[in-house]
C-alpha cells in the first residue's frame, strides 16, 4: 500500500514533525549526540562489530561504531569487509533487530513461593528498566517495532514487560544507504528511509548526517546540540542516496495483500519441495524482527519452596510448538514452513492489518541452506494471474 511512494525530501515526509527543518550533524559531532543521550540518563546501544557481524551493543562513543565496514549478504551467507570509507553506517542489518531489546529472549514473568502450610504466593517479576537510546535503528526494524507494539500492547492486554522497556526507549534511526543483496524493504513499503517511529532520524553523507526529528524529545535533543540547518544540497544528496538504495534492491515481495492468494495454495506442491531443503532449525524465526512466539516454562529452584515462571522465544519449527495432549498439529517440516510463511505473509493481515514481513531479508541471509522467501512466494504464485 505504501509502494510507489515518490521520493520526497525529508521535509515532505508525512507523519513526521520536521519543524524546524532538517539539521546538519557533522561526523565529529556524533560523539556529542551520544554524550547528549547519555546525559539524559540513557544507556546507548549502537551497532558494533562482534563475531564477524553487526550487533547492537552498549557503546561508549563513536569509536565503537563500525566505521568503514560493509556487509555482503546473500542467501545463506553473511560476510563483513573493511574498506576505506569514513562512513559508520554503510552496511545493511546484521542478524539482530531491536526485538531482543524489548521482547527479551528469556525472562522471568513471576516467582512463586510455597509456605510451610503449603499455600502459594505469586510475585510478578518486572524488568529493571533503564532508559535506553538506540543509535542506528533501520526502517525495517522500526516497522517491525510498530508490529510488536500492536502485538504486545493492545489496549485491553498490555504486556507489562514489553511496555516497560518500550516506554524507556529513545530511537535514533539511520536511513539505509547500503541495502544488502537480500534486502527488499522497498517492496514491502517499509524502507530504506526511516518514516515513522523514531525520535531522531539521520541520513549519512560522507561529511556527516542530515538529521530530522520525529518527536518532541528528538527536537529537544537538536536544540541542545545547537545543530545548524542542513543545506539544500545536503538534503538533496540524502534523498538521492535513499533513492539509489531503493533502486539497488533486486528482491521483492508482491506489495498486495497475499492472504487470499496464499490460503488458496495451501496444498501447492512447492510446500513439499521447500520441505526437502528446510532444516526446521528456526534460524529464520530467531532473526526475524516480527516473529513473536514464546514458550512458557516453570523452573523449580534448589530450594523446594520457590519456583520461577519463565518465557522464552519459541519457534513454530519445533515439534513442541504444535503439540497438543498427545497429538501434533504440525507433524512435518512441510506444515511448519507453511505455518511460518502463511502466518507472516497471509494471516498476519487479518491479525494486524498488514503483512508481518518488513523486508529486512534476515531470514534469507541467516538460513543455513539459503531458502529465500521471496523466491518461495514467487514459486507459489507462479500460476497466479
Amino acid at each position, binding site marked *: 500500500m505504501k509502494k510507489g511512494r515518490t521520493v520526497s525530501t525529508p521535509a515532505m515526509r508525512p507523519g513526521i514533525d520536521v519543524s524546524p527543518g532538517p539539521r546538519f550533524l557533522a561526523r565529529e559531532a556524533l560523539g556529542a549526540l551520544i554524550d547528549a543521550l547519555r546525559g539524559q540518563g540513557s544507556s546507548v546501544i549502537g551497532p558494533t562489530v562482534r563475531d564477524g557481524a553487526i550487533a547492537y551493543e552498549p557503546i561508549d562513543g563513536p569509536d565503537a561504531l563500525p566505521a568503514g565496514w560493509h556487509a555482503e549478504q546473500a542467501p545463506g551467507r553473511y560476510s563483513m569487509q573493511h574498506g576505506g570509507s569514513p562512513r559508520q553506517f554503510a552496511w545493511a542489518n546484521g542478524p539482530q533487530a531491536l526485538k531482543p531489546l524489548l521482547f527479551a529472549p528469556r525472562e522471568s*514473568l*513471576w516467582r*512463586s513461593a*510455597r509456605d510451610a502450610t*503449603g*499455600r*502459594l*504466593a*505469586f*510475585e*510478578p517479576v*518486572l524488568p529493571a528498566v533503564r532508559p535506553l537510546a538506540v543509535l542506528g535503528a533501520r526502517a525495517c526494524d522500526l516497522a517491525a517495532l510498530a508490529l510488536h507494539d500492536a*502485538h*504486545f500492547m493492545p489496549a485491553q*492486554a*498490555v*504486556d*507489562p514487560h514489553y*511496555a*516497560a522497556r518500550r516506554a524507556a526507549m529513545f530511537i535514533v534511526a539511520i536511513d539505509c544507504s547500503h541495502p544488502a543483496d537480500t534486502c527488499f524493504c522497498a517492496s514491502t513499503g517499509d524502507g530504506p528511509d526511516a518514516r515513522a517511529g523514531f525520535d531522531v532520524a539521520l541520513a549519512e553523507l560522507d561529511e556527516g548526517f542530515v538529521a530530522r526529528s520525529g518527536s518532541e524529545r528528538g527536537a529537544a535533543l537538536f536544540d541542545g546540540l545547537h545543530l545548524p540547518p542542513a543545506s539544500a544540497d545536503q538534503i538533496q544528496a540524502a534523498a538521492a542516496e535513499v533513492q539509489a538504495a531503493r533502486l539497488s534492491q533486486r528482491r521483492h515481495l508482491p506489495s498486495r495483500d497475499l492472504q487470499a492468494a496464499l*490460503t488458496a495454495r*495451501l496444498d501447492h506442491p512447492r510446500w513439499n519441495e521447500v520441505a526437502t531443503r528446510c532444516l526446521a532449525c528456526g534460524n529464520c524465526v530467531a532473526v526475524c524482527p516480527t516473529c*513473536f*512466539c*514464546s*514458550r*512458557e*516454562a*516453570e523452573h*523449580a529452584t534448589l530450594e*523446594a519452596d520457590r*519456583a520461577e*515462571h519463565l*518465557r522464552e522465544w*519459541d519457534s*513454530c519449527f519445533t515439534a513442541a*510448538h*504444535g*503439540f*497438543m*495432549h*498427545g497429538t501434533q*498439529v*504440525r507433524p512435518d517440516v*512441510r*506444515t511448519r514452513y*507453511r*505455518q511460518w510463511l*502463511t*502466518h507472516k505473509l497471509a*494471516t*498476519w*493481515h*487479518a*491479525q494486524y492489518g498488514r503483512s508481518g514481513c518488513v523486508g529486512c531479508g534476515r531470514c534469507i541471509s541467516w538460513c543455513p541452506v539459503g531458502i529465500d522467501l521471496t523466491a518461495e512466494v514467487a514459486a507459489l504464485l507462479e500460476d497466479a494471474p
Partner: protein
Amino acid sequence: MMATARHDPAGRALPMPATVLERVDEAPGIFTLRVQLDDSVQRRDYRFASGQFNMLGLFGVGEVAISIVSDPAEPELIGHTIRALGRVTSGLAQLQPGDAVGVRGPFGRGWPLERIVGRNVLVVTGGLGCTPVVGVINYILMRRSQFGRLVVVQGVKHAQDLIWRERYAYWRTLPRTEVWLAADVGAPLWPGHVGRVTELFDRIDITPDMAVLLCGPEIMMITAIRQLLARGVAPESIELSMERNMQCGHGVCGHCQIGPHFVCRDGPVFAYPAIADWLGRKGF
C-alpha cells in the same frame, strides 16, 4: 505489584493462589477439582462464562489450559474436570483437598448463551474430555424453563470410556431432555449405539431452528456440521469449541493460532462461520 495490578485487573498475567476444596474421581485417570481462590477480593471479582478456561498451575511444574465445568452463577467455586495425560495434569491428579494451585483466567470466548437461550439446543460431543460442553449442559439443566428441547449426543471410542454414566441416565429422566450415546467399540450392557456419533443423526429429530454446540475431534465436528447443514440448521446457529496448545492464555505466545485466529482469545468457542475456512485444515 502495582504495575501488574494496573495492567492486569483480571488475574491474567499473574496467577491467583487457590486451594482445592473438593476432589472427585470420575473414572480412571479422570478427576474433578473444585478450587477456591484464596484472596477474598479476587474471589469476589472472579466471573466466568461456560466454555471459558483457566490456566491451572502446579507449583514448580507448570500450567495447563483447562475448561471450567462449574456453574457461572457460583463463581466462587471453580470446577475443573481433568484427564491425567501429561506432566502437569499427572501432577494435578495427585492433589487432594487442601492442596494449593495457581489460577490464571478466565480466558477466551465462552458459549454465547444469549444466542442460545429460548431455543432448542443440540449438543454433540465426541471423545473423552469434552468438558467444555458439560458446563453448558449443566447450565441449561439448572435453568431448564429458559430453554426448549435439549438433545445431548455423546460419542466415545470405547464403551468403557464413557464417564458420568449415571449423570447421563439422570439427564434422560428430565423433561424435554434426550440423551443419545454412541461408541465406536461397544461392550456388554452398552445402552447406546455402536458406531459413529453422527450415525445417530438419522434417528434424532433435528430441526432447523436448533442451536448446536459442538466439541470433540475436528473430524467429528466437520462430519456433524455437514449433516446438520444438510438438515437445514443455519451455519450461524452452530458453535464449536476448539483446542490447541495454549501457554499464555491471552493471545501473546502464538502457539494456539489456527490461521488468523488465536484460539485462546478469539475462541475457544467459535461461531462456525468464523472458523469455517480453517476447520479441518491439517497443519493449522
